């Protein structure tokens, strides 16, 4: 029995408010791998939406709260052994890892703070940035700690399942994480499929998707056309490690009267852990009828 490792969970506002069962699934998955999780209760939003909309004053206000929240309840660990901060969204992870240090420093200067204070905000954000690990990336590095098939040695029913995996733009291009979600799916015993033009945006694009609903939907429809091809070849669901993309794709499907299942990667891994990876269970999980919630 390996020793318990601690980690903090960065749920993201979208998972917290709109798809808590993805967060709950992530908790189950991580605890099964002997992680002692802390969920800093003060976390709200990383500020990415406001940041990419150009509203940096607001983004910085949320960013400072983010830093306070994750410093407060967990401490940072030691420099040699930093406490992992596991993110359930690739694009939010990119926000914290890549944009936040510069943002908080700049905003402190804008507020008229001293350069020492501004530099302190930058350092605090950098320390946090160094701890952030995207969920699939974390699984990739740690699934060897415990045997993957915790509950079921051979999930026979899932052997032939094909799953479409959509990797969000920021996860792909800013974090450079593209293989870990595919490997997580393979370890779960399913065959990951990538769509034609997989690297094209799903259409969400943060504020863009709200300002330009018609262009946004047209972009999504192009993606859904490729999804239709994958479905005709046997894909059973659409998985992503970014809830923003999932809400866009799922929301458009729903508007078109299509109930094709969409799952956060954590939900799929959770089902696989329990040996429940069947088309029927995926259907139930996607529509919020099964599982733990």
């Amino acid at each position, binding site marked *: 029995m390996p020793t318990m490792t601690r980690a903090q969970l960065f*749920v993201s*506002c979208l*998972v*917290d*408010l*709109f798809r*808590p069962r993805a*967060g*709950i699934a992530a*908790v189950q998955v991580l605890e099964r791998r002997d992680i002692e999780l802390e*969920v800093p*209760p003060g*976390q*709200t*939003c990383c500020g990415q939406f*406001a940041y*990419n*909309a*150009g*509203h940096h*004053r*607001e*983004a910085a*206000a*949320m960013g400072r*709260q983010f830093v306070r*929240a994750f410093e407060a*309840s967990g401490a940072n660990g030691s420099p040699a052994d930093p406490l992992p901060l596991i993110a359930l969204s690739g694009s939010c992870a990119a926000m914290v890892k890549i944009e936040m240090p510069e943002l908080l420093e700049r905003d402190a200067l804008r507020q008229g703070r001293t350069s020492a204070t501004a530099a302190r905000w930058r350092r605090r954000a950098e320390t946090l940035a160094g701890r952030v690990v995207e969920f699939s990336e974390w699984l990739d590095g740690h699934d060897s700690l415990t045997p993957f098939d915790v509950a079921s040695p051979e999930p026979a029913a899932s052997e032939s399942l094909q799953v479409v995996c959509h990797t969000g*733009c*920021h996860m792909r*291009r*800013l974090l450079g994480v593209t293989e870990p979600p595919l490997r997580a799916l393979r370890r779960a015993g399913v065959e990951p499929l990538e769509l034609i*033009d997989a*690297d*094209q*945006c799903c*259409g*969400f*694009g*943060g504020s*863009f*998707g*709200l*300002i*330009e*609903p*018609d*262009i*946004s*939907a*047209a*972009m999504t429809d*192009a993606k859904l056309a490729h999804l239709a091809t994958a479905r005709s070849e046997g894909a059973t669901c659409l998985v992503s490690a970014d809830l923003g993309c999932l*809400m*866009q794709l799922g*929301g*458009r499907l*729903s*508007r078109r009267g299509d109930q094709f299942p969409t799952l956060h990667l954590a939900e799929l891994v959770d089902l696989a852990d329990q040996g429940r990876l069947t088309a029927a269970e995926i259907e139930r999980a996607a529509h919020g009828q099964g599982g733990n*919630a």
Partner: protein
Amino acid sequence: MPGVLPPATAPWPERRRRALADPTMRAAVAKTTRNLAQGKASAYASYPPGEAMRVRAVTARRSALAHIDALLEELTGNVEAHGGYVVRAAGPADVGRYVLDIARRRGAERVVKSKSMATEEIALNEQLEAAGLRVRETDLGEYIIQLARERPSHILAPAAHKTRGQIEALFEREAARTGVTPPTCDATPELTAFARRQLREEFLAADVGITGGNFLVAETGTLVLITNEGNGRMTTSLPPVHIAVVGIDKVVATWADLAVLLQQAPLSGTGQLISTYTSFITGPRRPGELDGPEEFHLVLLDNGRHELLGTEYEDVLTCIRCGACLNVCPVFRTIGGQAYGSIYSGPIGVVLTPLLGGLDHAPELPKSACAMCHACRDACPMEIELPRYILKLRRTEIEKSMEPLTVRLTFELWGRLWASPAGYRWTARLARLGQRAFMRKGRLTKAPGLVGGWTATRDSPPVAKETFHEWWRRRKPGSLT
């Protein structure tokens, strides 16, 4: 001095509507861009030196900008030493005046042009036509667009949105107008043969040839033109006068710098190792030479470029107009180039249009024509930070209060509330109460304010009955401090 760009042809909602309602154009643009993007990827993959040269090319371009004034002076001296004329033009009117002066002096009536973004930028054709000159575009795509009286839909492929059938119809009309035999069908060889016959007459009759320029080599005063159709050669060698209108940003110091740059545009733009025609033009025809124009004029166009030097946007001037950013942009693939309302479209257009033409030119571009996907940053061979530039432009527009008051207030209120856990939880509770009025079959199908933009085309799950944090607190009592 800031520059001037041709005004948008219609307001944004109208341009957007037209684009989304044109499935033929959208399919053609999507297909062209995907082919070009794949061509780029396989070109670099099959040509290993390309990447190392690209890295050196970035350095060459940035270094040229750092020494631009000295290089332009060196260039000018060398062009003049070869018997050419060099003039600096601040903006569109300067170029128009200069070209018309030459035309008048020469008694010129007919002008042929090879494809040039610089002359599109200053609406040179319109200026010359207004003065009574007859201007003919000779790049096949530009010729088609000129006959259709449209603007290019793609920097590299101006007529990418036109089908062969549409082109045949345009050519039939032109054949009737000029009294020649029309194309017999819409097969590509037949269409190009028609254009070739027509354009051959134009070349032979032209008094002035106008080109742009891909690069300018300071150390020898050489204009570099890359084309795929050979029309550039005709334009620069048949008419007695050649005028090249080139942005000041196109200057490079040496042939060694040019050597690493020359392949980058074809590699990144069309996936070719090198363009079909690469022309090096150093001055007019010299005594004893058989070809070339009697006069060679180089018009160095500023139009807002010099003002960008030394600013955080300086690197945008390293753009080589390869179009790689257009080809990977999901928004461009969806709406095509004409919707941008600027001669520069795609990500580079979102950046260059306000930087050259002013923020008021097409203020919607930064927020409406970018999904912040960062694909353009990866595609740009010159490593221009396009997404960061677009984000900076969004910020600048907000700082200048160019967005609706309601939007600003929404963000301010939201920022204040979500900066504290109590405010965040309060909005969750409020949304749960408020959303009941907007739900159908367990989904949110309508919403007020900004979120209404979401529900216009997509459903959303409602805010959960129990949020994750509420679940966690229930599961681990006392964990919420």
